């Protein structure tokens, strides 16, 4: 199963429509949390909102998350060790106040388990890559290893 989420605050019809178009070819069910969007998906189960406990359970079952570039969703994916494909909201398309999601994906691209589709045209390829990922976790990221090491040093009062 693949879960799609765009957060609760804003719709993101461009992403929902793009995944809906790909859904018949993905070979597994797709569940979408669509927020305040107006596009009605034809090929996947869609709900405006999903309660936190159920969302957590769905993420647990999912093989892949496709999402807007909200850091909360990225963190959930990391904790649950699920690969995530990020599509940034664009200010020029009225999808957010500014392009901070674009800045976020450019900084996060390449970290373990995080795949970026800056345009929806890249989505099919990134989803395929994400589904092919095996055995990784956020803890294997070099930046995460560094933070864990520094935290241990601080707690043990060793030189940083």
């Amino acid at each position, binding site marked *: 199963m693949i879960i799609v989420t765009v957060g609760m605050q804003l719709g993101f019809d461009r992403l929902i429509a793009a995944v809906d178009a790909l859904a018949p070819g993905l070979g597994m069910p797709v569940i979408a949390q669509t927020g305040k969007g107006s596009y009605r998906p034809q090929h996947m189960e869609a709900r405006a909102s999903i309660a936190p406990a159920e969302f957590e359970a769905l993420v647990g079952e999912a093989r892949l998350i496709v999402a807007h570039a909200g850091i909360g969703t990225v963190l959930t994916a990391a904790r649950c060790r699920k690969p995530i494909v990020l599509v940034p909201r664009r200010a020029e398309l009225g999808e957010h106040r500014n392009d901070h999601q674009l800045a976020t994906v450019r900084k996060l691209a390449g970290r373990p388990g995080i795949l970026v589709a800056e345009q929806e045209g890249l989505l099919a390829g990134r989803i395929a890559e994400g589904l092919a990922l095996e055995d990784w976790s956020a803890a294997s990221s070099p930046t995460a290893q560094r*933070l864990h090491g520094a935290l241990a040093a601080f707690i043990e009062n060793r030189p940083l």
Partner: protein
Amino acid sequence: MENDRIRVLAAASGGGHWEQLMLLRPTLAQYDVRFATTDPAVALQHDIAEVESLPDCNQNMPVASARCALAALRLVLKHRPQVVISTGAAPGFFCILAGRLIGARTLWIDSVANGEELSMCGKLSKRFAHECWTQWENLAADGNPRYFGAVL
């Protein structure tokens, strides 16, 4: 001192701040760690039974902030941590302030969500915590905050 005898208080508000604390949990678990959060129900989902609860607050809520500061003080007096760390937000900052009052070493790790600018509490922590770390290298240009990687 043996690692598992170092008393650590690790505090974070519910949501993204807590997610980041949980990503640090494998390291924190080596110590005598106690978690505190504004959303204990979520902590139970992570199988943390003995979580301490903190009232939520932010800089626009003076009464709630005072209540939270008192709760933080009670917490550090109860557990006497040698180290206090927080990944945000205001309730975690109050734990750091309370920790200073009892002589704990304190560390603020600013949220990975703050890639353009340090949070308000992060800026305060540059002065009030022993260490203030950002998770974005571009924000560590002048050495305070410092950068030692990120949870992702």
